[in-house]
């Protein structure tokens, strides 16, 4: 979407306006599935539901800048490398060990689809919980179209596929309708400890629904930013004619998804920055700076995603990889070559959102 610039666009929108599509000359058909978005007269891909949403987000960001507030940003250096990386995935495909790559692409598609749960996030009465006015902000439009547009983009809506279906189509085009490993959901949902019943409150002075909403937004923002690494991985892998049967079509689909995701990152950055620029009412009658609340939540999310969560995911992927390699004629040699291609990475010591006050 580019950097925030001066904008004449209005700051208030109805739900239907934020969900409105522009005119398309041609629809996007991925595989045999009609998907969202479409192409303009010059053949350029246009993302869905951005006719008013894109200018609206630019207007809210410009307003934030006019008021002298910064737009928060997550450092790209925090983004863990993909596992397996592009070279490792290509090695596996060349050697006929396809399941780990198919499984990875399938899981990406499912996780994208899960993004639709954002429409279930409870939005409390923000006008009552935020000290300063919130009219004309992204924050005031979360329930008013932004969450719904995000959900529709991810999982599709009515007769249009969304990112879930686009990832599936990219996988099927590139790898020619591969067999989906029967254990894909087991690998994804069926391992590790059960869900913890009690989530520890990071900000117990805040209204619980507000904390949950902000924590979810912080988590989704971090996942969306980190997903850019997955898009880069997917685009490079699936557009490589060495391993992809339809490099142009498959690679393009991933690039369309990447461009659709940009409004998600931008509205979440905007809304969390708007919270940072305000104060929040506490259940004990006091207030805390929104900046501190957002920093605490983003810091916790980023630490989790770059450390424990990354290691857990890496281990789970490696476990399934080792199983799949057993079918290869020389599994030990393949594993050796695979490991030699691994990208070294150490998470940065700081997230950039370390809490500034001990109280927070």
């Amino acid at each position, binding site marked *: 979407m580019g950097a925030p610039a001066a904008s004449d666009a209005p700051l208030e929108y109805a739900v239907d306006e934020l969900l409105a599509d522009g005119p398309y000359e041609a629809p996007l058909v991925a595989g045999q599935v009609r998907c969202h978005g479409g192409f303009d007269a010059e053949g350029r891909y246009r993302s869905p539901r951005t006719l008013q949403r894109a200018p609206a987000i630019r207007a809210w960001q410009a307003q934030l800048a006019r008021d002298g507030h910064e737009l928060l940003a997550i450092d790209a250096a925090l983004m863990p490398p993909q596992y397996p990386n592009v070279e490792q995935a290509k090695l596996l495909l060349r050697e006929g060990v396809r399941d780990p790559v198919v499984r990875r692409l399938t899981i990406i598609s499912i996780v994208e689809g899960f993004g*639709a749960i954002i429409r279930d996030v409870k939005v409390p009465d923000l006008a009552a919980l935020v000290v300063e006015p919130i009219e004309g902000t992204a924050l005031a439009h979360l329930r008013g179209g932004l969450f719904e547009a995000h959900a529709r983009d991810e*999982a*599709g809506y009515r007769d249009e596929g969304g990112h879930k279906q686009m990832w599936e189509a990219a996988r099927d085009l590139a790898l020619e309708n591969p067999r989906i490993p029967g254990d894909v959901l087991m690998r994804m949902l069926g391992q590790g400890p059960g869900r913890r019943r009690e989530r520890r409150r990071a900000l117990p002075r805040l209204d619980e629904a507000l904390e949950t909403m902000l924590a979810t937004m912080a988590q989704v923002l971090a996942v969306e930013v980190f997903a850019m690494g997955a898009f880069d991985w997917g685009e490079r892998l699936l557009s490589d004619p060495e391993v992809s049967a339809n490099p142009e079509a498959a690679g393009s689909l991933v690039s369309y998804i990447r461009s659709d995701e940009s409004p998600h990152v931008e509205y979440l950055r905007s809304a969390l920055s708007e919270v940072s620029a305000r104060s929040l009412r506490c259940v004990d009658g006091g207030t805390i700076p929104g900046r501190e609340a957002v920093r605490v939540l983003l810091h916790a999310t980023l630490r989790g995603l770059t450390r424990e969560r990354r290691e857990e995911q890496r281990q789970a992927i490696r476990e399934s990889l080792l199983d799949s390699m057993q079918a290869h004629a020389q599994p030990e040699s393949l594993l050796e070559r695979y490991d030699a291609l691994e990208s070294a990475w150490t998470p940065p010591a700081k997230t950039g959102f370390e809490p500034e006050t001990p109280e927070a």
Partner: protein
Amino acid sequence: MRLLVRLYRSLRIAATAARVYLLYKLPAWGRRLLRRPEPEDLDASHERAARILLGTALSLRGVTIKFCQVVATRADVFPPAVIEVLKQCHDAVPPQPFPRIRAHVEAELGRPLDQVFRAFEPEPMAAASLAQVHRAELLDGTPLAVKVQYPDIEQIVRTDLANMRRVCAVYEFFDPQPLELRPLVKELTNHLALELDFLREADCADRVRELFARDGTVVVPEMHREWSTRRVLSMQLVDGIKITEKEKIQAAGLDPADVVQELMRIYTRMILAAGFFQADPHPGNLFVQPDGQVVLLDFGLSKELPEGFGLGLFELMFSMMTLNESAMIRAFQELGFETKNGDPSTFLLITRRMMKRSDTGRFEGEFTEQMTDELFDAIRENPVVQVPSDFVLVGRVFSLLSGIAHTLGSRANVLEAMGASTG
């Protein structure tokens, strides 16, 4: 089994079938004779027929109870008035006298009861259509639950199934447009073959326990195989609060909403991820421990799904919850739903009908339950669709879970149970 008993059961089943048949046909013949139009609403007749079936089932027990339970799960075939009555057909039946049970256990284990058990309570903890369960203690004091198959149940099953097949054949011979009852009897035959083999049940329990071994939220009783046979199953005695006892759950400091969500997560993991599940989650088989662990009992009706079925089901549920029509149609086809004329537009009609249920676009638990009800209604009213039998069993599981959620006054978010997170 004595000839007279077999004859009595055969006659009773035949008489019940004849009563139900005539309940519909006599008024229809009368109307035709008097040239009166067909009534639009047959609910009163459906309810009466269901009550006749229920009465016979509670009297004869055994397979007839199982048959009513199978019918009660087929919302895609039978009208709601029938389902509503037969849903009451639980496994609560009077127990068999202890001397018969004792003799049966001793014969199965090959030694007197007191050479195995220090104590064996004559009053059963529970009695169902095929077996009853007794509390017992091994000689070393280990407390057990011992499930004992009724001594003559295998013969009863054979007799009743043969009777039902005959009744179906006669009914189909006389009725020009018969309901498809024979697949139900076949389904029942398959289920009973599984449920009557307790060693298989022990294997299934072990498999589910292993599935949750790293989870820490599910308890499956340990099986004592040295004191088990095909007809007697000795297992660890596990305590807990019955899953529908809301006040006791709250008194233990647990939130019923968490219990409902956890239960949905457990079943989602079994069905969608593992493709193997305990298919009988009625309240008598589910308990909660004070630390929140869910106890699963009774693995007689455990089911292995074909490879890919879990993923197909996931796609169907996911597309329903995210209002994606085109994905839903694909999922129907991948799961093995068929239209008799091969026209996929039928799926589109069903899908559109289901979509009308949502005004808000939200997909929380209640919405999903409504969608499932709507799906079965649509299929029943649109007989060109054939439903895979695995789907019916899974539908029954989710229907039972919905009932538990309703009793606990809470709803599960199925998408969250699948692994998505709202934070």
